[in-house]
């Protein structure tokens, strides 16, 4: 009687891929909640739109590739792409901006390279970069509804008016019969408050506490810092659940802190801010914990992850300070993705029993 063996463990105890993706989305939640508090429903609309488009495009791509969509869609990976993409583009962006960006991300940056697990570049960042290059004006103007800006002391972020204005920002074709266009503020034509704080060098939260202003109010200007602290909390949660490893985030944060401390020039008129500013006054926390740790496109060995974080940290700082792009996390992460295969090749762990970490390239049989 023939016996057929299947080698390998009979038991399996691991968090499944779709649960990993869901945990990443849950970990974004504190940061997203704070962002909605400060910047209105635009962000939520972005996320919902991006998710819908992402799922639709993913189903389309799978159908085009000849695979059945249902089992693949269940792995939730495209939802993570959608959420991270939605967080990087301005809240209140028109629906076509969201759609084209996420379409490029899913169809080209993910599926044209082979689908889940095969993409060399972070799809969300590819989508963001394409939009940045193609629609620079739309990507650098943030539509913040009047309801957010005009409320001073009595800050009610969840107003119906605010929601309505966010909807109008996302779907401009609904404006038709309205006489008033959605106002937007030129002064907020920035992704991050780096210019605002370049002279300050101090934490807005601490300033607010000192002056007894409402920390959660709009006037104190604490929005960005709190949002980043929210992402930091989410990232620590992911570390606690061991969904990501500490190497990439710690490496990025340490690098950015070190370089910004090295170059900190309080009296200079260029934006050499303090390390605190670079870490919490911009999108560094989101990048370090959520974007750069995307496992498919990042380096995969532990030593490689540390060098990957180092490269990304250096790139974040140098592109931000000496480059022409305001927020550089996306480009820095893409730069890291370029280097990741080489890092995987060079930075290998030393195998048990071997003396060197990387033996000579395998002797070709013909050289023996």
């Amino acid at each position, binding site marked *: 009687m023939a016996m057929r063996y299947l*080698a390998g463990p009979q038991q399996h105890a691991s968090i499944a891929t779709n649960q990993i993706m869901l945990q990443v989305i849950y970990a974004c939640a504190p940061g997203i909640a704070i962002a909605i508090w400060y910047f209105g429903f635009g962000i939520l609309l972005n996320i919902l739109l991006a998710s819908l488009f992402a799922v639709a495009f993913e189903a389309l791509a799978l159908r085009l590739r000849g695979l059945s969509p249902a089992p693949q869609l269940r792995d939730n990976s495209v939802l993570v792409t959608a959420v991270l993409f939605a967080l990087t583009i301005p809240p209140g962006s028109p629906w076509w901006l969201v759609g084209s960006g996420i379409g490029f991300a899913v169809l080209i940056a993910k599926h044209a390279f082979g689908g889940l697990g095969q993409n060399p570049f972070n799809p969300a960042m590819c989508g963001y970069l394409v939009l940045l290059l193609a629609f620079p004006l739309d990507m650098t103007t943030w539509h913040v509804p009047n309801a957010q800006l005009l409320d001073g002391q009595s800050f009610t972020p969840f107003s119906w008016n605010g929601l309505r204005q966010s909807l109008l920002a996302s779907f401009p074709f609904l404006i038709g019969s309205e006489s008033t266009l959605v106002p937007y503020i030129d002064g907020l034509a920035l992704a991050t408050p780096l210019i605002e704080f370049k002279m300050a060098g101090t934490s807005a939260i601490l300033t607010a506490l000192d002056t007894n202003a409402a920390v959660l109010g709009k006037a104190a200007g604490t929005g960005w810092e709190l949002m980043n602290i929210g992402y930091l909390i989410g990232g620590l949660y992911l570390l606690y659940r061991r969904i990501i490893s500490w190497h990439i985030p710690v490496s990025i944060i340490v690098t950015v802190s070190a370089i910004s401390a*090295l*170059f900190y*020039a309080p009296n200079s008129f260029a934006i050499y801010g303090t390390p605190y500013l670079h870490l919490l006054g911009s999108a560094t926390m989101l990048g370090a914990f959520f974007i750069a740790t995307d496992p498919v496109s990042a380096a995969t060995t532990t030593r490689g992850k540390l060098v990957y974080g180092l490269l990304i940290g250096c790139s974040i700082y140098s592109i931000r300070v000496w480059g022409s792009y305001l927020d550089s996390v996306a480009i820095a992460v893409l730069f890291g993705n370029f280097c990741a295969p080489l890092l995987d090749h060079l930075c290998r762990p030393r195998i048990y029993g071997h003396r060197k970490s990387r033996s000579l390239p395998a002797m*070709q*049989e*013909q*050289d023996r």
Partner: protein
Amino acid sequence: MITMPLVDNFFINILFAIAALIGIALSIRSSLVFWYSSSNQQKTLIDQINALLPQTQCGQCSFEGCLPYARAIARGGAINQCPPGGEATIIRLAHLLNDYPEPLNSAHGSIEPTKIAFIREAECIGCTKCIQACPVDAIIGGAKLMHTVIASECTGCDLCVAPCPVDCIDMLALPAQNPWQWQLPTELQSTAAARR
């Protein structure tokens, strides 16, 4: 001129200097590595290709042996003409030449399990034609004396069958050496799918 800094900021100059030094050091190291490796015996491409071929010298590739076929491949010939090498050889040649592996060209034969020549001694007339034909001298015998195949040296190339005037040579399949065959899970899945 050389004392003038590139940029006003002191730290940026230091950074540029460090980057330049690292660049110079890396380029020196990489040229040393190249020099060291080129002083080793460099095998030619033909030798590398020949080492991947199974050396049965059977001629099924339509060349006179494995080295001429290796030469043809090096000149740009097809890599899918060797049946005794099987798919593994095609894949390894593709890896070596940065080419795409293709299925075996059926005009040159098909992948078959290895066979060994066997002389039916009752019918052998001792003409030595098969001995002259065998490329690895796996047949022993003398003129007007019994010929026999050394089974452990026979490559299964078939070249002895045609010259035999009394047609007394059979090609017999080898007994299964190691029937415990592990398959890649993807192959298991595809065979299961094909069966469905």
